[in-house]
């Protein structure tokens, strides 16, 4: 009896103590010295190992804390001189000599020299297979530091990406000789040379970066960057209204539109460096040409694929799916990606023209059978095309609905195959699809995205791993790809890239549907000075921007939590309407599979 009473009493006491926070005075948001830019992020960095890190957040953190040999000029994508201030290549194009910036030090005060860079690249070169960044140095034969300010790299063949070695430079005195080099996490605070130092890391909560007093460049205006994790954009937006977050990226169009009338919030519609594509299975095969998968044989005919392209109304997709925030796609790389992008001349553009699509199919002998369903020549079976896509990301199911409608209209009924992200991956790599929706984010350098269309990316064995995007294989494309990879003259390289992309367009295997805009918001009443990339109209939330951001002068700390009730009510309604539309995660930094 007494035990029971005691149990009940302690339950009550516990209950009360659980309720005390309700009664506790609210802790004020204390402003510490300097200013903090809080950016809402949608996923964790997960792994910050400088060799292996590959998430968007990790790459942002590494870019903000470490230096790279070179960087990209936000305005025009040209090479930005960071650690390397000058470079020459030998006449045989195999030896590169970099002149390094003077007076760069690590955040612990030790000097950063060519030896650190050589150490980093050698470590990368001898890294295990799962350190995917090692492909950045795959052509390197030797890396030497003849003087503190000079770095010499010899390559086995001319390498076009020598100014795009996107690997952070590590302090040799911290990383050398570690057995766990390829898995270790940077110490907190990190020893690094970039504008910021990682000073606190709470996985699932936030990453705190503080200005690096030893940074060689202009001192950042905001002394602290806080990358704060939110599991949904809606929560992040609510937090922004409460004044807890200053900037959020990757909103969907509903969330973006809902903030239209907020006078304290700037909305940025960044023309996206990403694209959504419809892959047509061209008859998947292995590297040894053995057939793979079970794609519909009709799609092996380029003319059928072209007909399908004519049936797609891209503007409708942008309006209906992206809320108007996007550009129609055509050439493989987004138009914004100068100088690499190539777009078809108006005469060659396959615009929306269902009559033409029908006419092509008619001329190929695809009769229309009962119910307006076409029949492949030499077959009796009515056509159906399976369209695979992931339901993890809200836009793909909606793309699929439209495409099903349009292809049905030209006599090609579509069967929808929704799948989880990993299931879709499996379907794609095994070639078990007819049509498949996918997407990529684009890096400043085009090499990787071009490489996933070459023949040697095809799987070696049945069901085996592949880095091929869509079983595209064209020897002439491969020749162009290999040429551009070794072309050191940017203009000539761009020309080769253009030729390759135009061939790719002709093959109509990946059909670029849209270049979705990236929707970003920030508190313009608190911060200003954001830098957009690429060029005006680009994204302002990224490592290239934060060091230039500064607090709005004499900010009167008007607490934004005085948001009128009705506004919050509206926000709540919007939040409810789109709840569940969680941030989708960007898996990879360099390129985005959506």
């Amino acid at each position, binding site marked *: 009896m007494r035990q029971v009473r005691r149990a009940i009493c302690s339950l009550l006491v516990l209950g009360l103590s659980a309720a005390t926070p309700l009664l506790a005075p609210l802790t004020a948001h204390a402003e510490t010295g300097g200013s903090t830019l809080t950016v809402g992020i949608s*996923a964790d960095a997960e792994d910050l190992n400088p060799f292996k890190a590959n998430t968007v957040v990790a790459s942002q953190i590494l870019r903000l804390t470490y230096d790279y040999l070179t960087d990209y000029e936000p305005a025009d994508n040209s090479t930005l001189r960071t650690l390397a201030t000058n470079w020459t290549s030998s006449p045989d194009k195999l030896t590169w000599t970099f002149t390094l910036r003077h007076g760069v030090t690590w955040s612990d005060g030790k000097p950063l020299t060519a030896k650190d860079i050589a150490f980093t690249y050698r470590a990368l070169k001898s890294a*295990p297979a799962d350190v*995917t960044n090692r*492909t*950045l140095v795959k052509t390197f034969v030797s890396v030497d530091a003849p003087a503190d300010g000079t770095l010499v790299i010899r390559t086995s063949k001319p390498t076009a990406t020598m100014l795009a070695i996107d690997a952070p430079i590590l302090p040799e005195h911290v990383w050398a000789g570690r057995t766990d080099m390829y898995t270790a996490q940077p110490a907190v605070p990190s020893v690094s040379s970039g504008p910021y130092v990682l000073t606190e890391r709470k996985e699932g909560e936030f990453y705190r970066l503080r200005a690096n007093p030893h940074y060689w460049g202009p001192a950042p205006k905001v002394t602290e960057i806080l990358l704060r994790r939110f599991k949904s954009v809606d*929560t992040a937006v609510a937090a922004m209204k409460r004044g807890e977050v200053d900037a959020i990226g990757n909103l969907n169009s509903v969330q973006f539109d809902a903030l239209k009338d907020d006078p304290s919030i700037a909305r940025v519609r960044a023309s996206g460096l990403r694209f959504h594509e419809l892959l047509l299975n061209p008859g998947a095969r292995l590297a040894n040409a053995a057939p793979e998968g079970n794609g519909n044989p009709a799609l092996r005919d380029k003319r059928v694929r072209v007909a399908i392209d004519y049936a797609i109304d891209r503007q409708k997709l942008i309006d209906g799916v992206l809320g108007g925030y996007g550009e129609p796609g055509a050439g493989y790389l987004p138009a914004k990606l100068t100088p690499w992008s190539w777009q078809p001349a108006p005469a060659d553009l396959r615009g929306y023209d269902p009559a033409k699509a029908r006419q092509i199919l008619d001329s190929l002998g695809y009769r229309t059978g009962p119910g307006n369903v076409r029949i492949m020549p030499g077959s009796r079976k009515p056509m159906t095309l399976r369209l695979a896509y992931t339901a993890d990301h809200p836009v793909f199911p909606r793309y699929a609905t439209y495409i099903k409608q349009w292809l049905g209209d030209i006599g090609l009924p579509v069967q929808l195959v929704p799948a989880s992200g990993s299931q879709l*991956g499996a379907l794609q790599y095994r070639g078990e699809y007819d049509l498949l929706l996918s997407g990529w984010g684009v890096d400043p350098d085009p090499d990787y995205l071009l490489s996933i269309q070459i023949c040697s990316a095809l799987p070696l064995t049945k069901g085996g*791993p592949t880095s091929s995007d869509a079983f595209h294989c064209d020897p002439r494309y491969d020749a162009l790809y290999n040429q551009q990879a070794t072309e050191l003259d940017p203009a000539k390289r761009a020309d080769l890239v253009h030729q390759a992309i135009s061939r790719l367009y002709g093959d109509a295997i990946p059909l670029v549907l849209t270049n979705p805009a990236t929707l970003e918001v920030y508190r313009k009443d608190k911060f200003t000075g954001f830098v957009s990339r690429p060029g005006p109209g680009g994204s302002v939330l990224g490592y290239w921007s934060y060091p230039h951001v500064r607090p709005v002068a004499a900010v009167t700390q008007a607490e934004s939590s005085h948001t009128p009730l009705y506004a919050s009510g509206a926000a709540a309604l919007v939040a409810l309407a789109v709840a569940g539309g969680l941030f989708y995660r960007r898996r990879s930094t360099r390129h985005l599979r959506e």
Partner: protein
Amino acid sequence: MRAARVAGTLLARLTGVLFLGFALFHLLPGDPVSALTRGRPVTTEDLATIRAGFGLDLPLWKQFTSYVTALAHGDLGTSLAAHRPVADMLAERIGPTLLLTVSATVLSVTVGIATGVAAGWRPRGIGDRVGTGAAIVLWSAPTFWLGMLLMAILGVAAGLFPIAGMRSTESGGGGVLDVAHHLVLPCITLAAVQYAQYHLLIRSAVAAERHAVYVTLARAKGLPDALVRWRHAVPNAMAPTLSLVLTNLGFVVSGAVTVEAVFSWPGLGDLTFEALRGPDPPVLHGTFLLLCGSVVTADAIADVVLRRFDRRGGTT
């Protein structure tokens, strides 16, 4: 003897969990390595090497034996995404989840007992109508909806409580009061969802005990109503409640997934959710083992505790 039986059952169930965990995440469609390295510059040969490195190219039974051996050494594998030991990642996340679930359970049980007893003692009375009505509404409301609503009202409009995270991000955040302050909304949300179960269970248990002979005896003894209720009826009604609390503890952890997502609470639910999107099978497997293991273990504990608690277990 009984302890041995409980231990035996527990062991058998844990083995079942082990098998299920392996099956679920190793036979799942989709190739984690391809999914993981998508969009990264890897050659086809590299991919094959990585697969081999994870042992994914071995026959299934070999994967299973090495998995069991590793598990026996407390090794839950390495996350494909974070490249860190899964055990470390779980250890990092279990604290916040326990804080959330235990406080929410205490809150919901306390409130559930108070309102459930009142409702059960006078069924169909006004207290019963209001309390049980509220419980049913909360029970049927989707968790995220409730969370968003609380967030909009108490967090954004009234500005009383933080809406995300478990501590302030200002340096020096994370004190007891600070965490408690952040805990309020997620705790209330989770408690509100579970509360109905406790309310309804206690209500019906008390309503049944009300007619027990010893309750009439207690009344005959001339005890005031409150004593009859709290000394005699309620303790007897507590046995099924205690069992629900204990068996629920395991489930509550998984039930916290939504609440953790709504309030960006850095717990196991979040970890699971992220691992699902990867997919990151070792992490999924780790959280699976932990969640199932806790349900099964909580059940065994409930078994033992209840036998001690329920005096009626002795006869018949």
